[in-house]
């Protein structure tokens, strides 16, 4: 439970590690392929899918360009409805608020609804440090937590584990923190789910405090919405006396009507279901029904920095559906951990450097963790132009380094740009290449070559330069005609 993403190396290091993990490769390939097919089928049923995407993007853009007024509206509605609203500039402030709120109740444990925001701010670690146990109740989060592991997918944080591994984790760990796994537990999914249910039930019934996130927060009404599949969220949101919801400030929707669009976009994009099994909505406090002490912690933690970048801000439209992960060929092969945060895949490669800044080696490497194949944009329900954002951030990374000592890459790029800026320079360079081509007497391939091209030729043969460039051929042909 104390594992964090702090100090993760640059993407290539994590990727290399992950590529060698055969079990991980197999699990990921299977899981992403299955969910891609499911998503494709249910999205294909919706005739106006493209219009819904546009509406979703527009609603989010309205939020982002009027965030100040919508946030104040949300706060007013929440307070009217009996909730207490807290504002947190960063992770430390948010964690401090939650820890104090839990302490004030006298509780030493909380049950948790799966929430990206709380993983982002590392709330569980902060609670643990304050002597408060945080129990994850989403099945996949439970697997990650019991396995002292890191999440590797937004929706299915334990996507890197298979059934056999889950069984082993349950048998080994459940007894240490509560009701042990039933004897003779098999790795059949219904048996594993039953073990989790039995284990979690006593925690649900005992808990005085729950911590959740929110998928949506509706400014017009002050309503928070949690969309889930297992019913664990419903338990957490209704049983305890105190409910603390940690909500990123970009989770807003302007109106109740906008929610209709997103409840069509999210489940189909996310789990590949027409509708998710449980959708919980609550507006502040309801007398004698559900939690009576209701708190909402609105968290910035870098989001206003993202907002300040007029190109980059569209990343804040993200509704964390994970469709872009499932379709990403890079993610499919390396999984989530190499991205070094709770947000992996294309959206993580974009959000990481934006939320956390571009100082770290990991953050500088993330925008390059993509072939720019464009599959992510095509599935994104809110039309985030992920490839364009990746290129935008690459430009930022390069521009950050201008002025200092140029890297080998920067020198190569400069030399290349100089050569290509005029045809006569290009021709000179080409003559050198065709000179080699002549020496090779028409050999098609160079096979392996030394550094720096060895990065290419380690696994791929290098094509030999031809004996004539096209422009040499053309000049000869024109000459012959003339």
């Amino acid at each position, binding site marked *: 439970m104390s594992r964090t993403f702090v100090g993760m190396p640059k993407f290539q290091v994590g990727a290399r590690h992950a590529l060698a993990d055969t079990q991980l490769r197999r699990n990921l390939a299977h899981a992403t392929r299955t969910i891609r097919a499911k998503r494709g089928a249910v999205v294909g049923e919706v005739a106006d899918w493209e219009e819904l995407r546009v509406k979703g993007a527009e609603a989010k853009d309205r939020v982002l360009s009027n965030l100040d007024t919508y946030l104040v509206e949300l706060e007013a509605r929440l307070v009217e409805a009996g909730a207490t609203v807290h504002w947190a500039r960063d992770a430390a402030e948010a964690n401090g608020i939650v820890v104090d709120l839990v302490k004030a109740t006298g509780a030493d444990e909380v049950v948790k609804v799966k929430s990206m925001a709380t993983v982002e701010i590392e709330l569980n670690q902060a609670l643990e440090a304050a002597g408060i146990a945080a129990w994850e109740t989403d099945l996949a989060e439970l697997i990650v937590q019991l396995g002292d592991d890191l999440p590797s997918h937004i929706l299915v944080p334990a996507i890197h584990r298979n059934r056999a591994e889950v069984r082993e984790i349950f048998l080994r760990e459940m007894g240490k923190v509560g009701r042990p796994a039933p004897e003779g537990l098999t790795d059949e999914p219904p048996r594993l789910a039953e073990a989790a249910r039995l284990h979690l039930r006593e925690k649900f019934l005992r808990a005085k405090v729950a911590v959740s996130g929110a998928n949506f927060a509706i400014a017009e009404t002050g309503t928070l919405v949690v969309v889930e599949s297992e019913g664990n969220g419903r338990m957490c949101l209704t049983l305890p006396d105190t409910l603390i919801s940690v909500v990123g400030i970009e989770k807003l929707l302007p109106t109740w009507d906008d929610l209709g669009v997103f409840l069509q976009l999210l489940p189909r994009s996310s789990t590949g279901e027409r509708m998710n099994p449980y959708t919980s909505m609550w507006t502040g406090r309801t007398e004698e029904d559900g939690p009576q002490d209701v708190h909402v912690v609105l968290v910035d933690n870098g989001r206003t920095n993202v907002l300040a970048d007029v190109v980059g801000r569209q990343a804040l439209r993200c509704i964390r559906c994970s469709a872009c992960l499932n379709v990403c*060929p*890079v993610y499919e092969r390396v999984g989530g951990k190499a991205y070094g945060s709770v947000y992996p895949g294309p959206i993580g490669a974009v959000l990481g450097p934006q939320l956390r800044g571009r100082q770290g080696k990991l953050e500088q490497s993330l925008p*390059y963790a993509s072939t720019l*194949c464009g*599959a992510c944009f095509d599935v994104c329900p809110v039309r985030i132009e992920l490839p364009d954002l990746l290129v935008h951030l690459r430009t930022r990374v*390069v521009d950050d380094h201008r002025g200092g000592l140029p890297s080998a890459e920067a020198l190569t790029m400069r030399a290349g740009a100089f050569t290509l*800026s005029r045809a006569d320079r290009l021709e000179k360079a080409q003559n050198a290449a065709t000179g080699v081509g002549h020496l090779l007497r028409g050999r098609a391939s160079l*096979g392996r070559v030394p550094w720096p091209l060895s990065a290419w030729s380690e696994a791929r043969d290098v094509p030999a330069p031809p004996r*004539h460039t*096209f422009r040499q051929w053309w000049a000869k042909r024109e000459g012959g005609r003339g």
Partner: protein
Amino acid sequence: MSAVRVALFATCFNDTMWPSTPKAVVTLLERLGCTVEFPRAQTCCGQMFTNTGYAAEAVPLVRSFVDVFGSYDAVVVPSGSCTGSVREQHAGLARRAGDPGLEAAVEAVTPKVHELSEFLVDVLGVTDVGAYFPHRVTYHPTCHSLRMIRVGDRPLRLLRAVRGIDLVDLPAAEECCGFGGTFAMKNADVSIAMGSDKARHVRETGAEVLIAGDNSCLAHIGGLLERQRAGVRTMHLAEVLAATEEDPS
């Protein structure tokens, strides 16, 4: 009907490394009655610089592109990816350079820039180009052709009309091959992992020739296939379409 006058943008990569591709474009377009010109001042669309983050280095190449091709009615490019770079990225680079004159020039030239299959199907209105290619082949629709400039099934329609061809579907065709420009070097391990899967799918088809509209992706997949001594060669779409019974490629 007067002959269509076409400027060929060979692309720097094809010009230098794969001259048989632009040659094939010339053969093909002349066979279809076009007058092809090769403006010698052309160099590069700047894609590698743009996509690696070197926008400042790419801007002069945008400038040179509009200078060279601004006066033509149609520019044909045997590369989906370089077409995408011109049509989808030059405007942003011009904007970034803060040069309204350049922006206007880019806006004027980009609609006239066509990837080869687009030019054949949309501008010339042909799908049967009179080609003959009696081989078992499969086609990889490169990402930028597919999702950046959205050529759709144009290349497949052109290939289906080739006499003698045995065109088989590539499994998981729409998945990226892992080339990704400098990605192939900067993230070589992931690139190779992706390429291995693509190469495996190619081999599963039993095809003798792998066809695509981008020689850069083909160099990557072909490099893997060659290392494996797979017995599959790669060919650009233009070269297949240029081949005839009298003049096989």
